[in-house]
């Protein structure tokens, strides 16, 4: 299981508290992680990635292990610590605007 930390508004939308845990088959990539997240929580479809283009929304970033993975290929392997569940994948909303 991998651990994903969502922004507060998406936790509310998904009706979850704290971290979300989802099972992801090898290889553990960002795409696979988000696919698993959206399969478990269909209400999140379109809120992290555009429904049509599947591109990351402009005001969101993906952090893990003190790295910004936002501009990595979605098919690149996530850090081993994320794949094993030792560290969470953070979905971060830009701190901007109201």
């Amino acid at each position: 299981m991998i651990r994903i930390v969502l922004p507060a508004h998406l936790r509310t939308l998904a009706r979850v508290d704290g971290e979300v845990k989802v099972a992801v088959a090898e290889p553990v990539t960002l795409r696979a992680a988000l696919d698993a997240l959206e399969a478990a929580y269909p209400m999140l479809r379109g809120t992290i990635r555009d429904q049509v283009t599947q591109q990351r929304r402009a005001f969101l970033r993906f952090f893990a292990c003190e790295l910004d993975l936002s501009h990595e290929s979605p098919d690149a392997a996530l850090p081993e610590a994320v794949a094993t569940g030792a560290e969470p994948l953070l979905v971060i909303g830009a701190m901007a605007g109201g």
Partner: protein
Amino acid sequence: MSRVRVLVGTRKGAFVLTADAKREQWDVTGPHFGGWEIYHLKGSPADPNRLYASQSSGWFGQVIQRSSDGGRTWETVGNKFSYDGATGTHQWYDGTPHPWEFARVWHLEPSATDPDTVYAGVEDAALFRTTDGGQSWYELPGLRTHRSAPSWQPGAGGMCLHTIILDPSHPGRIFVAISAAGAFRTDDAGKTWQPINRGLRSEGIPDPYAQVGHCVHRIAMHRSRPGVLFMQKHWDVMRSDDAGESWREVSGDLPSDFGFPIDVHAHEPDTVYVVPIKSDSEHYPPDGRLRVYRSRTGGNEWEALTHGLPQRHCYVNVLRDAMAVDSLDPCGVYVGTTGGQVYASADAGDRWAPIVRDLPAVVSVEVQTLP
């Protein structure tokens, strides 16, 4: 005893206001979807407990919510709004071609007969429909692919399809309005569309009488007389007596004919309401006085309705979807402001009182009259 349920969309959530037919004591619930922009929410005429809400955010995109119990509980439904086929281009603000990009749903218009059928007006301008209660949405592409579409340009708020009127006497007839392309009508359920802007005059475009390019802010119709339409254009209040084939100005003696909303009394098809705003660069009421204007003659002759509305130091706006009428007798009228007030009149506009004063900026107001 009848009740009313007022559905309020704001910049930071939705609120549901309910009262009995006296419309004096109000119960307020919300915010629903706190922190999200709620451009519009509306109930199904066929099943008043079925509500739909457009929830959006600059961070997280578009979500559609559905309630089956009058707004007590909600569930997310489909939010995939994919243009049908090649998207083509419209004009950007600088006149260059710009591809159609979905941004948000501005307006939801449920069918009069089927609670699972809803039309959605979106930015960039297009019309979508669901027939499964919002689970899936399909574009009616004939509008976006109209031959004039490459020349459409956005208004300051985006190129939005904000008005949808389903003609109760012609099942295939739909009126829509787009800022800043103008008004359009289909008579074949959305397959083909024609611009209906003859008679409109707009100084801000190269040809003031052009077939398209007018910044129409809102259109209203009385169900008993669907061939008569009233329009609040950017500037000018207009009227059509032939289902949009031609328009004539009925601004008459208004202190300003700029404004956003327009609506028609529930029982008097020639009684019309507008909220004059000083100008397009000063989005507040003339003289700092919030006045709803009422015409009982189908336009041209207007009276200021001020009793209970702020008459000094008032600089709020009333946006295009933020006026509604109930169908009680006497007819109730409701306006929501960008200052967060929702004012109600239980006597067709003669006297007003705030239901709430301190909501986030109000984007939309709808009313349901319940048995």
